[in-house]
């Protein structure tokens, strides 16, 4: 039986070393937006890095959200599938709607220092088991179907850096919990 319901979080970091077209578009356009919007918080042009601007004016924390406006069109191009995290067939399948956008570092005179993170939060997934370093998952809440002994579609995803379980709801099925206790299975990966 399932270990429980989870949401995965994938943190995608993009900087000047990015080679993908999508990543380059996101980096270029968010840098331009940063360059433009940062001027509001740096009207005397005293500071050059995001960190300096933020230290001088804590309201510059709004730049994360302001600059995200340049990324939203590209996020929509993903069609609500978390990028990079593929099943064993190489297809992206993990649904997401929520994200956080973060400026990790930037410099008003050097676009090559621009570095951002997009944290993708998946929709609910049923975590059935872990096989070596692979999650055995089903999209959505499939606990009922599993309890009823139904065959369900599953996916396997390898754990990788920047991928984490951001929330977890244990299986409430008593038999499942007892079975896990008997097997001594570990809820951690």
């Amino acid at each position: 039986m399932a270990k429980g319901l989870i949401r995965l979080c994938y943190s995608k970091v993009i900087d000047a070393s990015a080679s993908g077209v999508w990543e380059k578009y996101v980096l270029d356009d968010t840098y331009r937006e940063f360059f433009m919007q940062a001027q509001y918080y740096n009207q005397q042009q005293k500071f050059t890095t995001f960190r300096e601007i933020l230290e001088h004016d804590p309201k510059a924390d709004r730049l994360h959200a302001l600059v995200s406006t340049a990324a939203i069109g590209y996020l929509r191009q993903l069609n609500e599938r978390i990028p990079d995290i593929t099943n064993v067939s190489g297809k992206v399948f993990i649904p997401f709607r929520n994200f956080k956008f973060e400026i990790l570092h930037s410099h008003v005179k050097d676009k090559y220092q621009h570095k951002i993170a997009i944290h993708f939060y998946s929709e609910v997934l049923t975590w059935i088991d872990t096989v070596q370093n692979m999650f055995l998952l089903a999209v959505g809440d499939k606990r009922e179907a599993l309890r009823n002994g139904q065959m369900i579609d599953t996916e396997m995803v390898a754990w990788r850096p920047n991928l984490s379980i951001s929330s977890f709801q244990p299986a409430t099925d008593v038999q499942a919990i007892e079975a896990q206790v008997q097997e001594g299975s570990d809820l951690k990966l």
Partner: protein
Amino acid sequence: MERKQFLKRLGMGSLILPLLQACSSDDDDVTSGACSTTPTETAGPFPTKDPDSLEMVDIRSERTGLPLTVKITIQNKNNSCAVLADAIVDIWHCDKDGYYSEYGGTSMQTVNYTSVHFLRGRQVTDSNGLAGFTSIFPGWYASRAPHIHVHVYNASGVSLLVTQIAFPSEITDAVYTTATQYYTKGKQDTYNSSDNIFADSVDSELATLTGNTTDGYVLTHTIVVNA
């Protein structure tokens, strides 16, 4: 062994890889004769340039309020006050209750829901130096006269001017006491003459408004920059 490594060892990776990829990646393509139907993909393998989501005329999102059309003309003092085309104009203002968008820092956003980006937009001035927006009449918040923020940039995104637009008090009074289906706080607590920002400069920052409290207003204003 990774397929790529395997092919590299065969010494034919670059030649054969595209062929293999074309055959192996999808099972939903239909082949007939010499050509194949392009497969459907859920992810965007071929991303396209996408304009900033701020670039819109209608900046209301789902915010309600009395309709307000904003028409801002940009002039260039360095060119005998001629109109300035291709200037980038950002505006933002609070909603009917006095709240702004974008104040969430790195808070969670939803990809298909624009509510975090309400009442904020960007337009490029046309050949008449005009940038237009469809919005709502802003509300007010404590210690500030009603206003619209404006940031004007040149076509390269270099800041030319950060300023604010003030509203005639007789009109804000009328809106806040008449259009009460939207505005529930009554009259503003700060007027232009006692506002920290406008007190010494309202003459050049006061907009012209035409309209009424039923159909809404049209705001026109000219901003002069040194471009």
